[in-house]
């Protein structure tokens, strides 16, 4: 498990954000949740002229779609050659320790969480990338509201959902 320390990750991520924001780069923020409804439109063959939301996300969705392809590729290459953590798995170690050993439980909860995660991100207009990293870096008030709500709900859910006392 080779890995970079968190401060190196922060510095590199900051450099990537500045490069993306720059007019010599992409002149836009990094986002990572608009591509989901865009892909849903492609996969379920929804008519882009008929749905308001598909028109709204046409540009951002396709931009993030290409970025996502890069991110899958980058993640795969690094996991195979650098961190050497590539393996097929159905259930995380932490889930076994603090929740249960049931694959079915993990998959059903994953499906449910994925579903509400995207609805939540699209209601708020962004996710960890678009709001927390890109928005807070511009000192946007919307991002600070989102960040505060997410942090509180995240920690409350963590306390209620997992059996953290069994250490």
């Amino acid at each position, binding site marked *: *498990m*080779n*890995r970079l320390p*968190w*401060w190196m*990750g922060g510095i590199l991520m*900051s450099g*990537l*954000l500045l490069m993306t924001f720059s007019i010599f*780069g992409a*002149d836009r923020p990094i986002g990572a*949740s608009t591509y989901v409804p865009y892909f849903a439109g492609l996969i379920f*063959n*929804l008519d882009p002229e008929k*749905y308001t939301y598909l028109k709204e996300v046409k540009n951002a969705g*396709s*931009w993030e*779609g*290409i*970025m*996502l392809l*890069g*991110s*899958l590729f*980058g*993640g*795969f290459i*690094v*996991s195979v050659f650098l961190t050497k*953590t590539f*393996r097929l*798995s*159905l259930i*995380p*170690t*932490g*889930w076994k320790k*603090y929740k249960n050993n049931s694959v079915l439980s993990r*998959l059903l909860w994953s499906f*449910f*969480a994925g579903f*509400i*995660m*995207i*609805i939540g*991100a*699209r209601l708020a*207009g962004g*996710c*960890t990338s678009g709001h927390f990293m890109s928005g807070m*870096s511009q000192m*946007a008030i919307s991002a600070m509201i989102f960040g505060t*709500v*997410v942090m509180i*709900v995240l920690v*409350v*859910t*963590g*306390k209620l959902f*997992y059996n953290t006392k069994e250490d």
Partner: protein
Amino acid sequence: MDIIVKTSGEDFPSRIVQMFENVIHQGHGSLVLVFLIGIIFGGIIQYTRVDKFEKIAGFAMLKDTIVPKMLFLTVGLTSIGLYFMIEAGGAHYHIKPILWQGLIIGGTLFGIAMAILGKCPGTGPVSIAEGRIDVLVGAIGGLLGGLVFTLYYDDFFKPLMGESSGKLILTGFFPGNEHMVVLIFGVAVTLIALLIPKVEMFDEADLSRLPDDKRPDRK
């Protein structure tokens, strides 16, 4: 043999081609650059291991603080750099509007989901790329979420998000002192990143591949 590129069809392959065309023509970097941004983004997330369930759900349980430390450091450093880049004309603001209902309801759903799935929409694909099938199932749930959001946007979700209270930024509240506010914000957020105590939840599945003296949990 002629190669025909269809750019106006409605079938799946031509819509994929249209995705590439959209990126080429929207003026936010070349196709190669956008793909490269993705590679670096995924590479950083993978190499720092912040896509792991133990890091994100671990933070929800307050047993791991790598994710908030890295996030706050990124924001602290970027906020200062970005402000002066914008001042110099090298970048623009892209501020999202304040939709109180959307932010609070959306943030609540997002927070619950992040704790349970142990991923977010940026880190999820990186986990799928390293073979996590449970996250792939989460992504299928996400696609259906995106479908439902698109189908009921006009009738349900857009009204639920509420009216915009404007695209405000922190410096707007302190006219004349913008530089000072940016520096204080950037330094304060960076300090938060440094001051959050470093706690870690390790994954035995990764640690067991290391020799005993290299294991970070035995130091």
